[in-house]
């Protein structure tokens, strides 16, 4: 990781941010999303909170929301890459001596910055609404969210450069997202389900990350939970960055 690498990543990132900020509608949608969830979905959980095994609806709900933002927002990051590819931007970048990993990392920088802003709004509002979470736990939870978000954004970029078509990519993203949403306990905890579903969901890596983020916010994180959550987040991030770099390096990209 040399200075050149970070410089190249920054050039790519700055360019991406400029494009994003020139289209403020998307920035606003990204900011309003967590707000709407908190105000329109949060109250529904309040009467159910005891049944879910929690004491505070927002302490339970905010971490789930956070991971959902991280995963789902990032999964759509690749769509803009297809447009860039079509206009020859990717080829123009690949013909320069810039590191192929920097071409990906620069784009991840944009996605992570957007995610961080969304996360800060979500957690901040959570506190305003009565969430009870220690600062250290919240920081840890946001960091884990950024890791899984980065993994999803990298995978989304890789998928975009592999399919090179929105029409092909959209169904693939949906096919991947459905089991993630249903099996990771983002909206409701898996522990309230029947035993077979609980066991089955343990095969879903994101479930362990959701558990870790949620227990970090609750302030009673066990070493075991945190270890598996962090390990999965780190592993997915590494694998996705490797895959993403490979597609930028690959022929025909």
């Amino acid at each position, binding site marked *: 990781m040399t200075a*050149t690498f970070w410089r*190249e990543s920054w*050039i*790519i990132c*700055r*360019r991406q941010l*400029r*494009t994003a900020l*020139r*289209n403020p509608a998307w920035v606003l949608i990204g900011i309003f999303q967590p707000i709407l969830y908190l105000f329109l979905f949060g109250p529904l959980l309040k009467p159910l909170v005891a049944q879910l095994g929690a004491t505070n609806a927002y302490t339970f709900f905010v971490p789930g929301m956070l991971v959902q933002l991280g995963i789902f927002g990032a999964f759509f990051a690749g769509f803009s890459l297809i447009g*860039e590819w079509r*206009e*020859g*931007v990717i*080829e*123009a*970048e*690949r*013909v*320069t*001596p*810039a590191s192929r990993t920097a071409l990906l990392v620069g784009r991840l920088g944009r996605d992570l910055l957007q995610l961080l802003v969304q996360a800060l709004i979500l957690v901040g509002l959570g506190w305003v609404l009565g969430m009870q979470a220690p600062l250290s736990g919240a920081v840890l939870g946001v960091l884990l969210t950024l890791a899984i978000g980065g993994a999803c954004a990298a995978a989304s970029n890789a*998928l975009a450069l*592999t*399919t*090179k078509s929105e029409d*092909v990519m959209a169904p*693939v993203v949906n*096919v991947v997202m459905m089991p993630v949403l249903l099996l990771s306990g983002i909206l409701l905890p898996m522990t309230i389900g029947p035993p077979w579903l609980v066991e089955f969901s343990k095969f879903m890596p994101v479930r362990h990350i959701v558990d870790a983020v949620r227990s970090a916010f609750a302030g009673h994180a066990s070493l075991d939970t945190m270890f598996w959550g962090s390990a999965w987040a780190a592993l997915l991030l590494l694998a996705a960055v490797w895959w993403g770099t490979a597609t930028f390096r*690959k*022929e*025909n990209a």
Partner: protein
Amino acid sequence: MIHARGLVQTFHTRQGKKKTEVRAVDGVDLDVAEGEVVGFLGPNGAGKTTTLRMLTTLITPTAGTATVAGHDIVREPVEVRKRIGYVSQSGSTFSSARAGEEVMDHGMLYGRTQAQVEKRGKELFAELQLDGLWERMPKNMSGGQKRRLDIVMGLIHDPTLVFLDEPTTGLDPQARANLWTHIADLRTRRGATVFITTHYLDEADALSDRIVIIDRGRIVAADTSENLKAQVSGDLVSLEVADPAARTTVAEKLGSIAEPPRHGLPGVEIDGVHVRGRIQRAGRALPGLLSSLHDAGVVLDAIEVHRPTLDDVFLTLTGRSLRDAEGGGEDGEAAAQTGAHPTTTDDMTGALR
């Protein structure tokens, strides 16, 4: 500047269960000297762009070796990239970014500082008649302006070797002529070696010192335009005769001095009111022909003499006209185009599994 030996690129296409291998480039040898302007001519789908993408390190050759700007394209791609400029067929700028910012970011990826690329970028904008368009979005530029912006992108780091892929495709004649002067400037003003792919005969003729012709993935000729044309036997002489009976006489007389049919070029033929045939050194042979026709009492309505064109060269070399190859070469083109996607299909099934 460029030395390539036996470059091969194969793509795998899949139609249902049948897997076929397409050799888009099938053993290309190329030598380009420093300071040369070389035109890489061939019909669509002949393997021009694929060869170019190998030389610019965008794809790895299936077989063969090449050194470009002094470095091996497979072992030292980064060194090659630092020294070459590439103006791709598909454009290189994001349509809703500012032109100047795109150029500066591109230059900075070559390790130049922001101040350096801003200065150089503005100089190039002036040179390529893009003054006042620094803040303009590419989507609001004309086709010619956009192509010139692509050239600025390719030149921002002052490369010693510039690749241009079909630079004038889709431009109107005026923008095209304008771009030609800028391409010619690349060598005269900055001493760059230039490698241009094109399927336009006039473009190859007008811009290059030397022409390399590729057909079906193989190099079929490499020489100066003059030498290539000299290989074609004879100038095309076309005589317009109104009187149908006289046309046979004209065909006979022309046939006695014209070249016999060979290499896909026809012999003497009657086409409507025209009688055509190829004659070596028409300037010397014509007076004799004309006086014998005059003696035979034949009245000619018009006389045209055409020097051989690059299309005649292509016809002689491949037995097909370049225009026919464009139309009839659809198989090759389709293969080369799907050739870019099969890996996609493979990977897709992989992703879905």
